[in-house]
């Protein structure tokens, strides 16, 4: 199981809003695929998938906010 965490996005940025999941829960993702898009200030930031596997759980849904370091979703490696 690989948890996908919100990485540090820059000084003074402690959270971001999930604006788009490229995959639905249960779908297969490849490492480095665009996984989730986040919005902060006037920027969108795309987080690539850290692993190949099934996106088994989405913990933070579109429109919801996540803090830096917190998990956004879980990938079960295959």
């Amino acid at each position: 199981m690989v948890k996908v965490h919100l990485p540090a996005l820059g000084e003074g940025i402690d959270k971001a809003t999930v604006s788009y999941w490229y995959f639905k829960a249960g779908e297969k993702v490849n490492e480095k695929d665009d996984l989730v898009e986040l919005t902060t200030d006037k920027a969108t930031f795309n987080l690539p998938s850290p692993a190949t596997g099934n996106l088994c759980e989405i913990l933070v849904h579109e429109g919801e906010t996540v803090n830096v370091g917190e998990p956004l979703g879980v990938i079960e490696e295959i």
Partner: protein
Amino acid sequence: MDLGLIEYKKAWDLQREVFAQIKNRGSPSTLILCRHYPVITLGRPAKRNNILIPQPELKNKGISVYEIERGGDVTYHGPGQLTAYPIFNLAHLKKDIHFYLRLLEETVIDTLSSLGIYGNTSFGLTGVWVAARKIASIGIAIKNWITFHGVSINIKEADLANFSLIRSCDMDIEMTSVESVIGREIAIEEVKQIFSDKLRRVLWSKCTCRH
């Protein structure tokens, strides 16, 4: 890369093409400069009802609408603006979204200063202002720490009228332009030269990338 006056979609496609080359082949970061035919774009968090006139009327005016992947709400672009899209790999400079946004703002302020205009930022509101009016808008996207989309500076006064078609950035903002502030006509070319020189200096000269 100066595209001159170009349809929004063509420049958008080119941005993504340049982005892919940087991402997949490690090509050098590129500054795209252009002006657009009248267009309204909606960023990811945009509310559609911030476009204040009905779609058929927009069509009659020849104004297209695009939903795009940048941050920020609704904005307008027209031929009287300078639009700059730095497709820049921040991995070669600093992986920091705020650092990059502030750097774009500072470059606009520095450019305005060369023209005798005092521009400023407004805390919590990305963009550049002259007193209470907005003169430059910023909306960016970052993938793999490579930036796209960018900044537009209002230069020609005649182009400001179309901002009344939208509720910019989901706020009741009054826009201004370089010409409105200095009280005379100015060639877009002049502002373009100053801005692109300054931007290249702050982005390209400090980065560890190939030029």
